[in-house]
């Protein structure tokens, strides 16, 4: 149990329409495997992962809450927005509708979450429309182009990536990019005190200590 040490604990939420692959992204991140036929998430599921941001020389513990995309759970999952530091807004690149609905998810996030929350737009399932000629004919057609996603993300001030939970492409990168952005905000002093419960500084020296309250900025 030695070496349970991290500099920050960041809370992430993963939202987006049902069946866009939120749980699969999380399992890919935490277990490095692909969840082929997951059951729809009920309420919320938890997963965590330690990542290192080399240029900041910081170990960060990501606590991810994977929320249900089904409408009936929407009021429950909203409760999680407020406490989060980062948000993965997921859509399915082969489903126009899921991209359209991302707007309403973002509206939800904007309404309930901390204004400084870092949001990254993730277009999932790019493995389904790969250009690789060796691959079996793509099962489904891409309905949202990369440019379109990127443009909209820019308009809304979101980070953007396309990823595949199946191949693992860009999954860790998405979390890393969001983490970097949050750390950058921490450095600028945006998350000054315990205004945001989503960021916590932890004593790196001992694994025994409780998570301290973030003490006036970093370092």
């Amino acid at each position, binding site marked *: *149990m030695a070496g349970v040490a991290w500099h920050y604990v960041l809370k992430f939420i993963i939202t987006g329409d049902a069946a866009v692959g939120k749980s699969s992204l999380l399992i890919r991140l935490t277990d490095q495997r692909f969840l082929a036929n997951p059951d729809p998430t009920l*309420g*919320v599921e*938890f997963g965590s992962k330690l990542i290192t941001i080399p240029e900041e020389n910081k170990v960060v513990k990501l606590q991810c809450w994977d929320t249900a995309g089904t409408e009936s759970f929407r009021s429950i999952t909203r*409760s*999680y927005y407020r*406490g989060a530091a980062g948000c993965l807004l997921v859509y399915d690149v082969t489903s126009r509708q899921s991209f359209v609905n991302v707007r309403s998810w973002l509206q939800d996030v904007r309404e*309930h979450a901390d204004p400084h929350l870092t949001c990254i737009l993730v277009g999932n399932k790019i493995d389904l429309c790969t250009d690789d000629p060796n691959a079996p004919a793509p099962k489904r057609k891409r309905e949202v182009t990369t440019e379109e996603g990127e443009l909209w993300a820019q308009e809304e001030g979101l980070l953007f990536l396309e990823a595949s939970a199946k191949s693992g492409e860009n999954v860790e990168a998405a979390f890393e990019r969001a983490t970097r952005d949050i750390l950058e905000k921490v450095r600028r002093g945006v998350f000054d005190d315990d205004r945001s*419960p989503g960021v916590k500084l932890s004593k790196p020296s001992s694994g*025994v200590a409780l998570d301290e309250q973030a003490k006036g900025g970093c370092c």
Partner: protein
Amino acid sequence: MEFLSQINIALRGPTGQPQSASDTIARLADRLSPSTLLADRRAAVLALKGLSRDCKAEVGQLTLPGLLDVLQNDAEVDADIGKAVLETLIVLCEVDENAPAAARELGYKHTDVVLADDKIAHKLFALMADHSFYLRYSALQFLSVLLQNRRQVVQNYFLKAPVGVTSLIALLEDKREIIRNEAIFTIQSLISQSPEIQKIMAFEGAFEKLFNMIVGEQGLEGGVVVQDALTCIDGLLRFNQSNQSYFRGSSLPPVLLSLVGFPPNLPFNTPAPQQFALQLWDVPQKRANVSLVVGLIGLLGRQAGPPDGLSIACTRCLTEFGLASNAPTNIKTQALRLVPANVSALPLAEMVVTPYVPVPDTNGEEWDRLEPASALDALVELILHGEYNNIIDGERRTKDGMELRGAALGIFQNFVQKEEISEAIVQAMVSQPGSQAPVTPLLYALTTVPVSPLNIPSVTSTHFATLLFAHLLRASPRAKLTARSIVPQASAQGGGGGGGAFFVPADGDAPPPADDEAEADEPQTLLQILSEHLSLAFLTRARTDLPDKEAREWDRLCVGYLCLLIQWLWEDPAAVREFLEAGALGVLVEPINQTAEEDAMIPGLCAFLLGVIYEFNREPGEVTRSTIHPILTRLGIDVLSGRIVHLRDDERFRAVGPDNFVAASPSTHVPPHHPHQGPPAAGQTKAEVEEGEIWFDWAFVDFWKSNYYTIQKGITVDPNSLSSAAGQESAILIASLRDVIRGQAAEIEKLQTQLKALTNASSETEALRAQVASLAEQLQSSDQKKREVEKEQEDLLVLLDELNSKRRRDKERMRQANMDVSEDEDDDDDEDDDEE
């Protein structure tokens, strides 16, 4: 109460006639309307609060909507009215469990009105964040009342409340203890059976806040609030996989372990520190707190899949608690029961513990540290000889002590599930040629000669030894095979007293006197000794002058021997033959033949053992199936079969369940017996300590239930028929399938090594191929270079040739011009020409 009378006066009509309660209430209800002055409304609410206790129904019927409006509109404006209205509503909704049904119904009815929509619930969540102490406090109280009455409805509202969770969690950090404690209490019922609320609580940091609070309250030495906080943590974790993984991954589990003084990062080869092993247990609250923490540690120790660092640390902590601490007996029992069933993954034999025993007559203030021993030895020692080697309980068998030994037995059973382990343990009891195997404590206890009058600790050890040995043999044909070759040394039977294997001077346990006749003969095998002791026990039991209490102990011994033999001889024809040759038949027939109406247990077991012998007597020997069959017929097949079935009806047999092992001793009012004014027990010097006893363990009951039918069938079958019941066939089938599996496993292993070799070979090929490719490339490039060089050379030769002819021409011209021309160069030229 002055204002009350004032109001009553004011409300009295002009006639001055006293009004009925319902008239008063109706008027007060009118005053609740928002059109009145705030002060009037406040007075009305206070008046209603006074009336609500006595006229619950009327107040509820007439004023509930008005009160709820006041709560909605005025509570935040005016803390006094808010407090009053909340207190009134609490009275209206409270349900007293002891009240008559009608009164309770009223409370539920009012609750339903309050919860008709989510407005009031949301208001309460908002009020919890209010600054006024009384508002917060009453809002919390009202919420708990509502939760008690209609938990699910409140839970649903709570999940959808915009700020509910945050404000409730914030209360855990309230400086005012009353509010904080009330909040913990409310959270306890709020999270009950709602995984979604549990998860969001975890998300909002409930674990961290609760732990901060526990640490702030002096940890486990703290009061009942620590207990409440721990109960809350338990509620958040127990049935919630998602929260468990959150918790495991957080920095809290080490804190949990350090709460009980166990260093979370203790290296495996370092002993647990003394401040963990020896703690003060005087405060009853601490016991309750520790018990909750032990429960949580048990939860973390249980882990699907391969054990990780955390689950190993937890399991070790539990084991240390149970085997090497001065914790109260019931906490030890709890800890040992929670040791995960896959304990064989943990190196119990290599793990070293340092047990402690109380110094007699020091009232638990001084403790002796014993030599470090392997956890397995300490475990067996605990099972055989009880807590602290029985020096506290002495002759008594306390129920707590028996439960502890039972829990330890459970760990042993799990540990020896693996055949290699049980086999190795049995193997260690066998003498190697040329050297004598040490007498292990288990073997010593198993072969202790019973002598009248029986000494209770010694009977108990022997009985536990039979249970331990049965666990070793039950599932392992190879262990049975090895066990047959155990020849205990004479010293074991001779009662030479504590050999090296005893790390505790046996003071509660007087060694039995030597058995001379056994020593005279050539050494007996374990099986022979057991059969002899069984016969001895039957003989003594048959004496009529035995006091009831002692007869009961002899019965217990017989049961122990019989149960072990039944499980040993099952499916082991060689053991059956040896047992028969030891003269077992006569021993068994006698008790079956008794007309024992009062006791079905021993005849039942004997009949069953006889059946096992008949069924599995498949090796040629002096006593064959045909020899036994007439005996069976003479005893009567039906009688035997009836005896077997009757065992099932015996109370002592029926009472045993998977978690239920120790029975209370029947009406044995032994005068309180204090051999030494012992430690922990001395803290609560109760004369009456409940005593307990054991007869069977669940493993045997389970074994018996699955196999008695086979035996019942088996005894009816003709001696020459090969195999009697379907059970036998399936057993053979299973055995053959097992062989197949074993073969396949070996084959898989072989193939795997082959595969590995092949992979190695193929990687070699790969390397060679790469080498070839690079060589070919080199060859190609050098070829090309060579070709270039050749071409250059050719060009040079042509050039040379041209030069030569030019020189020749020039020489010719020089000669013609009568210039001096060197000869040798001509020669050279000639030579050159020749060459060309």
